[in-house]
């Protein structure tokens, strides 16, 4: 109502004070306001300046009271401008994200004649797809676990208290790039480092150490873990940095004043506070690894069975299989991603308690 009825505002001072005055006067001066904002909570929500965000969530909790929710619906319906501004984005996401996902769901359950069938979903239990699932899960889990631990350590060393300040910006810039480093550039970089004629391999051979005798290879799941860490660690740095910065120095000082050692501080205060954020970020890393396609494609050209590669092989016609099979695998990935998002949301909610 602030823009459609400018009349009431012209007489008032600008800024927060104006919204204060308007809230109290609204039901009198504003005819439509009587309908909308006799509910005090809704009025507060419309003027967040009145109430700090923390208080709003304290008062309303995660789910707002029923009355507020009904009011929201009414406002949504009664304000055509909202449709104009937010509508295109929603429509786009429905058209190019929601509907295609539903298409995947439906077509995974339909045979060529259009009848309902579970044959494709059942075919997921074939050895190759089970192996693909196992490999993808192993790769994602370990690259997420190691990436989260090392990434948090790196962020702590480079961004935490006592770290050299000049490291901050270069590290964040590098992390932004490296977390997107994928596909052939990454594959080439590692081939030229740890491949059979790679720089490090030759250096080690010169020192009398044969890397291939240790069983290490870039072209299996464990080799891929080493490569994935190149983007997982930087991603962790980016994701965890805000949480690390949220660890207030006062907490450490207070603990110290009460006689706690560094170890006790970390065990009883630091880690418990940051643990949900660590878990949330690790979940994100897991999802990131699970979705990765370009890097294993460039590095192994399909010799390691991974679900994303298997979908693509079906889609590009590299293997003899029906398109529905690819959609059945896509469905499996969607299910795993949904679980990942649910876990992430849960951990993120836990960690948001400590955000300022």
């Amino acid at each position, binding site marked *: 109502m*602030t*823009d459609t009825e*400018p009349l009431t*505002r012209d007489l008032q001072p*600008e*800024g927060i004070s*104006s*919204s204060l005055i308007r809230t109290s006067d609204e039901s009198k001066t504003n005819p439509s306001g009587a309908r909308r904002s006799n509910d005090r909570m809704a009025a507060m929500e419309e003027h*967040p*300046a009145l109430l700090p965000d923390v208080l709003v969530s304290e008062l309303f909790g995660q789910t707002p009271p029923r009355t507020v929710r009904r009011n929201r619906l009414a406002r949504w319906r009664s304000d055509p*401008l*909202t449709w104009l*501004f*937010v509508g*295109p*984005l*929603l429509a*786009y*996401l429905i058209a*190019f*994200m929601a509907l*295609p*996902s539903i*298409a*995947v769901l439906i*077509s995974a359950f339909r045979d060529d004649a259009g009848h309902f069938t579970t044959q494709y979903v059942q075919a997921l239990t074939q050895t190759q797809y089970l192996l693909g699932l196992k490999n993808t899960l192993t790769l994602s889990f370990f690259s997420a676990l190691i990436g989260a631990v090392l990434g948090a*350590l*790196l962020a702590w*060393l*480079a961004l935490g208290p006592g770290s050299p300040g000049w490291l901050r*910006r270069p590290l964040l*810039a*590098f992390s932004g*790039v*490296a977390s997107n*480093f*994928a*596909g052939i*550039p990454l594959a*080439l*970089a590692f081939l*030229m*480092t740890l491949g059979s004629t790679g*720089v*490090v391999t030759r250096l080690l051979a010169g020192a009398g150490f044969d890397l291939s005798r240790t069983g290490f290879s870039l072209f299996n799941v464990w080799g891929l873990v080493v490569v994935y860490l*190149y983007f997982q660690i930087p991603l962790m740095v980016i994701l965890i940095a805000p949480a690390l910065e949220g660890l207030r120095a006062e907490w450490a000082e207070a603990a110290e004043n009460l006689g706690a050692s560094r170890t006790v501080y970390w065990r009883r205060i630091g880690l418990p506070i940051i643990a949900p954020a660590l878990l949330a970020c690790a979940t994100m890393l897991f999802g990131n690894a699970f*979705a990765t*396609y*370009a890097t294993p*494609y460039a590095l192994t050209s399909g010799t390691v069975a991974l679900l*994303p590669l298997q979908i*693509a092989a079906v*889609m590009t016609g590299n293997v003899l299989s029906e398109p529905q099979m*690819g*959609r059945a695998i*896509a469905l499996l*990935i*969607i299910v795993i*991603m949904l679980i990942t*998002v649910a876990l992430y949301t849960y951990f993120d909610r836990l960690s948001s308690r400590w955000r300022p």
Partner: protein
Amino acid sequence: MRAGKFLSGAALSLFALYFFVPLGSLFANSLWAGGDVYNFSAYSEVLRERGFTDALMLTGQVAAETIILTLAITFPAAYWVNLRSAHLRPLLSALSVVAFIIPPIVLVSGISAFYTGPEWFVGTPHYLVAAYTVLAIPYTYRALDNGMRSLNLQTLSEAAQSVGASWGTLLRRIILPNVRGAVLGAVLLILTLSLGEFTIANVLLYQSFPVYMTYIASSKATGSAALALSALLLTWGAMYLLLNLESGAARRARRTQEAK
């Protein structure tokens, strides 16, 4: 304390080794010109390669269209959420998380299952743009939302309108100059995304820049390494610019806060 400093220094050096040795070997290999000869010939050769210009043109076109389309639909939504419809923020945040987490391979599988026509859409670069926009929306929305949230748009808009500014003036003279940093950041992010995206282009058989890079790697590893390194440096420069913009915006925000 000194032992701790030494340990953290050692750990940081190990990280540095892990991150810079592969880049170093990539660089060394891109300079290799057979035998003991090392020069920049791979860089100049790859530029003359057939297909390079086409791939770059295609990627440029897709990037430009994705930037325009993404901003056109995300900017109004982010603006409105910050101005009037704060109650929609949870919905949009949730949607952008979903768009962020959806694997490109699943997205492309869904889009190609759902859209099989019309002809001006399927099989043209527009098809790629449609998919890239979904990938770009989460980054763009986050960047714009963060940029606008620190502004207190409501106060700005009310102040402008109370001195008689029209919608157009408000947008042109108040809103856009203030969110320029956020918009530029979003543009850079979309650009890097389009420059690096491989999955969708490869599956849909488009010869975009990353696909081209992969394709020549099998015949010309040094040329591919040269391209990879150039692209990496470009992205790095863009990212550095982005961080500088952000800290500039933060400084400005702090100044405004202090002024209050």
